[in-house]
């Protein structure tokens, strides 16, 4: 369990003149479960979006599963297949059924046969507890169900790493727990996870490490017990007070 999954060294990102990420350093081992939090606009989403190169960084090094992400990457799609992502707004394909959402990329990109892909898809849909919705269209499901489908869709690619970009922020409160439950189970199965989330309960329960970001920097990093009980930085304390006070 000491293989490196993600290695980020001295990474910087700019939007025009705006310095979005400053000198980010982060190492993620295989099997690590990391929760990233911070106020909005702190660059946490941008950082994990750099990991599968939905955003391009300008300086520093990002290595994902042993491959450096830079302009010389011949085929970024190959790396993305091993890095799954779950979005805030689910981003399911509305013109495809739930099952087709799950089988499309395995069949096209991994060249899995249809029967095989559907078997895998049903397995993961069962795991997220909505196999009965397989023939429906995303628009017919509730937000929580959609997000679980999105997780299943990412799992169907059999990724080595899963990125979660605020997976519960767009959900109605009563649906948050059903998504978190699935995420907890995944964590217990040993999936390498990077989660941007404000769900501190989830962080306490499953995270190996919690990272706090503000203004494009990693301010503090540590195991959840230390992070929540004895935060070192002033900014972290303020943030925790705000988020835990209600």
């Amino acid at each position, binding site marked *: 369990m000491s293989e490196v999954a993600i290695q980020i060294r001295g990474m910087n990102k700019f939007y025009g003149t705006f310095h979005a990420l400053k000198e980010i350093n982060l190492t993620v081992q295989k099997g690590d479960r990391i929760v990233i939090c911070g106020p909005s606009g702190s660059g946490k989403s941008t950082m994990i979006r750099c990991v599968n190169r939905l955003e391009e960084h300008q300086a520093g090094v990002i290595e994902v599963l042993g491959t450096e992400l830079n*302009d*010389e*990457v*011949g085929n970024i799609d190959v790396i993305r297949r091993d890095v799954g992502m779950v979005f805030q707004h689910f981003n399911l394909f509305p013109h495809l059924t739930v099952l087709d959402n799950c089988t499309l990329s395995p069949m096209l990109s991994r060249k899995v046969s249809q029967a095989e892909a559907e078997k895998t898809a049903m397995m993961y849909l069962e795991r997220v507890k909505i196999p009965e919705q397989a023939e429906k269209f995303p628009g017919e499901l509730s937000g929580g169900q959609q997000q679980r489908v999105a997780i299943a869709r990412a799992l169907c690619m059999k990724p080595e790493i899963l990125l979660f970009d605020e997976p519960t922020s767009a959900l109605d409160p009563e649906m948050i727990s059903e998504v978190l439950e699935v995420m907890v189970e995944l964590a217990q199965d040993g999936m390498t996870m990077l989660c941007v989330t404000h769900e501190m309960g989830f962080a306490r329960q499953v995270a190996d490490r919690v990272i706090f970001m503000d203004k494009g920097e990693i301010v503090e990093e540590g195991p959840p017990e230390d992070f929540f009980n004895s935060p070192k930085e002033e900014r972290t304390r303020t943030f925790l007070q705000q988020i835990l006070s209600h």
Partner: protein
Amino acid sequence: MLKTRKARAWAIQIGFLAIVAFLLISSTLVARDTLHAQGMNSGFGFLDRSTGWDVGFSLIEFSPFDTYGKVIVVGLLNTIFLGIIGIVLANVVGLTIAVFRTSENGALNAIGTLYIEIFRNVPIILQAFFWYAILTHLPRPKDAYNLGEVAFVSARGVYLPGLNVTGSSALIFFIALVLGIFFYIWFTSARRFRSLTPSAKKNGKLTIVGLVLVIAVAALVMGRIPETNLFSIPTLKGLNIREGIRIPPEMSALAVSMAVYGGAYLAEIIRAGFLSVGKGQAEAAEALGLSPWYVFTRVRLPLAFRAILPTLTNQYVWLFKATTLGIAIGFTDFFSVISVSINQSGQTLELIAILMVGFLVMNNTISFVLNRVNKAIKLKGTQLRT
């Protein structure tokens, strides 16, 4: 070598440019050979040669001894003239039908719908042929419909009373009027003049009106044809109608088809604009005690206009392009002048280049001006549109 994405991007773009360049160069070479084989000279020298043929309708004086350059100008002016008339008429028709269509009265609704369903679903060129056939099957001049001894309607055209002035001076007269109206609207509504004192504003308005009047009257006086009456009233003399201004049936048929067909499209655009104005805004205006007329002119119309201006721009450009139908029924518009010139002079490539550049310039002017207007009147910021 082509490993990085940047390098690949460059390679693709250079390759693309190379293909475009290759196509351009090879077609130029082929064209040169073809022209050479046909023994033709390329270049724009022919524009100075005289045409040897006359045109059916011209706003400025033209004779067969005039040059190709001049005949092209004649065509351009005719196209602009027809375009303006057609678009103005289409707006009148469109606004009327749109009001019918949005009216609460069922009978008006039905008339509006009937109109749109009939005239929008038949090609404009068919309508042009149809109106042209109707107009040229009217009675001959000696049996013309007489409208109070001052206007006649016949198969040779519509005769209206006019002034005995040269075509160019009439043209200057109209341009002065159009520019005057434009500047007047600009001056009264543009932001930058809003801070002027009322008296300065009044002076500005008077200056514009005065200047336009002086130029317009001067143009008419200078262009007056000597030894004729100022007013020219059409009269029936023998088998023909003399004097007055003759609007040839080709011109009328095109103007009518543009008005009828374009009007049907514009009506639907304008209607959509009215529908896009939120009920809330109209209700708010009513709640403030504004009369229905003010609610319409001060709230619904301005808001609808802002909503549809981009679509209107496209439709105006489209209608302006419809002037090219002149060739189908023999109106000497820009396109048909070019077409005849190609037949007569054989300078195909040059003339088509002139044609395309002409339309690119004219249509882009329309969109440029209207886009500027659109930008100027656009609602600032984002607001709830419900």
